[in-house]
Structure formats: structure tokens, C-alpha cells
């Protein structure tokens, strides 16, 4: 009985009936994020297997762990972590129906994401200057693939956030569409938790 009531309340909230009593879109996003765990699980495993594999030639012996700039990456990690706060504040604002605040927080989140991507581009460039190219050795290939995939996810997130910003500017994103912001937010927070894992396992755990 309680389940039927819950379903009715949810239907009233979201305007459409679902067989589970919860939003199909949100369910799909969670299923997608569950599958994304597998993608990153595979990439992280690969990196851990190859992190110390240097190349055979004299020019391919430098691996990413030799040239990590931890203070710089720490700042990038902090920026991405704070973007999760601004994202959740954007959701909070649209739930209250405060559209200007929603736009401000969405824009701030996008900017923080862009700063993170800028930092990653700088990091990759400096690694290349140090002689760590994508195909130089197995360690560098695994590193660039893992962090590159994460960077692509962040970039897609920025595109989604900017789409929401533009929709809000055009008056197409209002309080009743708060679930859309929540779903984009779930994606954004996922990208953040993946980086929490990468930052610790790849950058901070010492390599013997």
C-alpha cells in the first residue's frame, strides 16, 4: 500500500508513471554510472599493471611517476572537488526556483571543470617535454589512456552544464525541470569520485 502511495506521489512529482515508482531517467543514469565503474575499473587495473614498465630503448625510460608534480595535481584535485559543491548548490537553487542562482552555480561549476581540464592539458604538455609520450612505454600509454578518458568525461560534463546554462537563459530550464539538473549533477559527481580514486591510487600511493 505504501509502495502504491509512493508511486502516486512520484508520478505527481514527475508527471509520468513508471513501473518502479521512480524516475526512469534517473534510474537509467544510475545504471549508466554503474557500468562506468567497470570502464574505469579496467583502465585503473591496466595502469597499475603497467605503471613501472619502462620502454626498451634509452629514450623511453622515463615513466609518468618520475615526473609527477604532486603540488600542481593537488590544486587541480581541489578545484574538481569544489566543483561538486557548486554543482549541488546549483541543484539546491533550482529546487527553490531561484533561476539566477542556478545559472551562477552552473557557470561556476563549468569554469572549475574548465580549470581542471586546463591543468590536465598543462600536465600532459609538460610530461611530453620531459620525454613521456603516449607511445614511449607501456606505463605512459596506460597513464594517458586512464587520465585522458577521465578528461573526456569532464569535458562532456562541461558541455552538459553549459547546455543547461543556455537553456536556463532561454527560460527553458525552470523549477519543474530540477530533475534534469540532478541527473547532470549525478554525472558530474561521478566524474569527481573517479578522480578521488585516481588521485589517491595513481598519484599519491608511493611506487617502490
Amino acid at each position, binding site marked *: 500500500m505504501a509502495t502504491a502511495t509512493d508511486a502516486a506521489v512520484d508520478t505527481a512529482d514527475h508527471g509520468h508513471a513508471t513501473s*518502479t515508482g*521512480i524516475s526512469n531517467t*534517473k*534510474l537509467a543514469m*544510475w*545504471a549508466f*554510472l*554503474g*557500468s*562506468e*565503474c*567497470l570502464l*574505469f*575499473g*579496467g583502465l*585503473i*587495473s*591496466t595502469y*597499475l*599493471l603497467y605503471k613501472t614498465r619502462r620502454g626498451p630503448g634509452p629514450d623511453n625510460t622515463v615513466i609518468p611517476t618520475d615526473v609527477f608534480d*604532486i*603540488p600542481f595535481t*593537488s590544486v587541480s*584535485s*581541489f578545484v574538481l*572537488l*569544489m566543483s*561538486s*559543491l557548486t*554543482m*549541488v*548548490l546549483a541543484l*539546491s537553487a533550482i*529546487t527553490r526556483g531561484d533561476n539566477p542562482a542556478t545559472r551562477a552555480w552552473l557557470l561556476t561549476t563549468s569554469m572549475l571543470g574548465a580549470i581542471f581540464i586546463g591543468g590536465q592539458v598543462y600536465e600532459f604538455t609538460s610530461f611530453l617535454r620531459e620525454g613521456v609520450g603516449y607511445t614511449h612505454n607501456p606505463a605512459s600509454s596506460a597513464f594517458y589512456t586512464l587520465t585522458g578518458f577521465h578528461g573526456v568525461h569532464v569535458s562532456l560534463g562541461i558541455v552538459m552544464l553549459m547546455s543547461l546554462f543556455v537553456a536556463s537563459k532561454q527560460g527553458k530550464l525552470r523549477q519543474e525541470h530540477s530533475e534534469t539538473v*540532478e541527473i547532470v*549533477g*549525478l554525472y558530474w*559527481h*561521478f566524474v*569527481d*569520485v573517479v578522480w*578521488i*580514486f585516481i*588521485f*589517491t*591510487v595513481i598519484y*599519491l*600511493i*608511493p611506487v*617502490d
Partner: protein
Amino acid sequence: MAETTLAETTLAEEQAHDHPSDWAYVKIALLLAAITGVEVLTYFESAVTVFENNSVTIASLMVMMVVKFYMVAMYFMHLKHDNPLFTKLFVGGLVLATAVYVAALAAFEFWA
């Protein structure tokens, strides 16, 4: 009229309990930032003698990582207050990912 007001108040209280306030989100973020600060400190191990032992460093880092992961998933992604089915989907993915990780490392004799 009084009943309606009471119902509205109760609903408002329930909603307040459903999702943390903005200030609560800020406090969570500050805690996450503080944990990140401690994580980074472990890198400069000469500054913190307790982290001079590698196994202590790794164990501390893993615990801090799990705490940060949990806090973002539970509070920012609202898993704590949302339908348990979402948690099952996400944890299911994490368990499968861990299985992939362990299988890959075992296949390549990572621990040998």
C-alpha cells in the same frame, strides 16, 4: 486551517531532512578539502613522521579515499536519501569493477 499548517510544517521538515541545507553542503565540502589536505601531506612524508612507514601511508590514503568517496556519493549524489535501488545499481557496478580489477591483477600475476 491549523491542520493544514501543521501538515505543511511537517512536509517542510521532512523535505529539510530529505536533503541537507546549503550550509551543510558547504561543511561537507570543507571536510572533504581538509581530508585532501591531509592526503597531500602524506606525500611530503618528511614533514609528518607518522607517514614515514610506507604501509601506514598506503593504509591511511586508502581510508581517506574511501571516506571521501562515501561522502560525495551519499551526500552530494543523495544516495543516503534516495531510493535504495540506486545504491544497489551503483554498488553493483563497484563490486563488478573490483572483480575486474582483482581478476586482471591475478591474471597478470601482480602479487607473484
